[in-house]
């Protein structure tokens, strides 16, 4: 890679678009160049810069699992300039992708442990990558619990996969929606993620907790986990600072001595505690 221009994206063709929730779409992307498809690899937790030429780049995680070869997926909510342009793209269109960037979830170290996934809203995608990675190598892990909440039933993403996870005997799935976000036939929990987590009370024994969500959810989830007996080293999250380059040069995601893009985005709660609260 060293003799290449690090700003040049891979050209990717949109193979499939899934509407996940209002304003939220998943793209399945395939490499235009067969060779790229062969050499490309990534690990759970990494992200990329997705672009529409002439509009710009936007940062999101790779939402598919590294165990699923030949394509990558990203899930995004239409919010700013680039995501609005991406939302207009159609199947068959070309988008740019640079990556993979950043560190990874230390899944090798989690072998033989229980995994507890806690996600809120649009933050399920970074976790979905880890969840499928774990499910595809199921023998490596003990109990897998997923606590997932969104504002409303409509806002839950990956609805088909939630059903699939629910039907699996080797996964415990708890879904919740904010009060007022439920429908008449809603069978899940009603309440915010931290309180539902507290009620669910998963054991901290030999368990890794992975938390992704809006800052406010994370802020209230960490104390609950500590109360449940999780140590700082066994709680992981991802930071989502604004990024441009993805490799520690543009300066934007600098928090204390780390660049979230290069040294993160995955941090343990213990690592997070050492950083100034600029995220």
């Amino acid at each position, binding site marked *: 890679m*060293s*003799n*290449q*221009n*690090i*700003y*040049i*994206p891979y*050209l990717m063709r949109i193979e499939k678009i899934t509407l996940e929730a209002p304003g939220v779409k998943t793209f399945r992307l395939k490499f*235009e160049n067969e060779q790229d498809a062969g050499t490309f690899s990534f690990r759970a937790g990494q992200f990329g810069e997705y*672009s529409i*030429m*002439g*509009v*710009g*780049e936007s940062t999101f995680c790779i939402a598919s699992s590294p165990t699923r070869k030949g394509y990558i997926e990203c899930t995004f909510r239409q*919010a*700013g300039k680039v*995501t609005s342009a991406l939302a207009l793209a159609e199947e068959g269109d*070309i988008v740019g992708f640079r990556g993979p960037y950043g560190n990874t979830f230390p899944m090798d170290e989690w072998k033989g442990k229980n995994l507890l996934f806690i996600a809120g809203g649009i933050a399920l995608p970074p976790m979905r990558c880890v969840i499928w990675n774990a499910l595809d190598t199921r023998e490596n892990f003990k109990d897998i619990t997923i606590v997932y909440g969104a504002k409303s039933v409509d806002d839950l993403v990956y609805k088909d996969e939630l059903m699939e996870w629910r039907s699996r005997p080797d996964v415990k799935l708890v879904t919740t929606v904010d009060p007022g976000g439920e429908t008449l036939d809603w069978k899940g929990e009603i309440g915010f993620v931290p309180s539902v987590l507290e009620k669910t009370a998963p054991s901290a024994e030999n368990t890794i907790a992975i938390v992704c969500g809006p*800052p406010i959810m994370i802020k209230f989830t960490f104390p609950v986990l500590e109360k449940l007996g999780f140590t700082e080293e066994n709680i992981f999250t991802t930071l*989502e*600072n*604004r990024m*441009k*380059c993805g*490799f*520690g*040069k*543009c*300066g*934007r995601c*600098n*928090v*204390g*001595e780390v660049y979230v893009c*290069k040294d993160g985005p995955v941090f343990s709660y213990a690592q997070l505690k050492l950083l*100034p609260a*600029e*995220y």
Partner: protein
Amino acid sequence: MQTENYLIRKPSLEKLFNNLIGSGKTIFAPKAKGKLALFDNVKAYGEITEDYIVTANSAKSVVFPRTEKLFSYHKSKEKTEITDAANSSFPEVILWGTRPCDAAAFIPLTDTFNGDYKDIIFNSRREKVLLLSFSCNKSDDYCFCTSVNSGPGNTSGSDVLFTKLPGGDYLAEVMTPKGQLLVRESIDLFEPKPEEDKDRNLAVVANRFNQKEIQAKLQNLFENPVWDDKSRACLGCGSCAYVCPVCSCFDIQDEAHGNKGTHLRCWDSCGFGLFTLHTSGHNPRETQSARWRQRILHKFLYIPNKSKIAGCVGCGRCSRSCPADINILETLTSL
């Protein structure tokens, strides 16, 4: 390599300039503009001013232009084609009249654009730059190079350093093979090294602080009233970062013209509120004082902790150009 020292007489210096211009080199040198001196493209020796402490703008734009194409694209129905800007031929540039602080700044700047991810566009530009620096024979209260391991006669980063001697001739210290090549090409202009002591002909720049002490203090100073106090008048512009020879934060922008367009790198600054603003409206650095703190911590804690050198060369440009008279030295010495 072993440093080579020569004498170059005043008229020969002009001849050297003319030889370089004659060989088709692009030369950037300080040009007077009102009360300021600015690095600018010069074609004739007479355009160069000697009356400056440092130029108002830094020389970084020759390796890190304020707007630079990273690639261009062409979209058609069938396919998208990308033209890599790294394949362009970058100009050979001579920086004439850089100060030792300017030359020193190329070291941290080059660090930033290398490491795990090598920026070949930056490196291609850097390779083609020759730094012909001139020692400082005057300084002002904004200068503090000696506090950040540099000095008015410091050679690091320069290919050749000229020091003006009494009578107007110059001592030429040739520091690099690139500099050596330049001397070989005009060897008749260079004479054996003078006896004159270099240090006696340098400006005096007082040592204002101990960088290691500052670094140690900053380790535990994230929450401190000094950030509010010293940044209260800050207007939130990017002047300090844009005149800084080390600051290298950037933005990436696309510009489209029909089905063609370019992908650009543009200067950016941690002093702008927009720099860290999320699309959601959340801003990790909400206030101007948090941004001022970031500027200081980045230069005097984060960079030195990683690469041992400070992210500042003590040129004082930020303080001189600040429209609100916010002075970096004042902040550092009041910690």
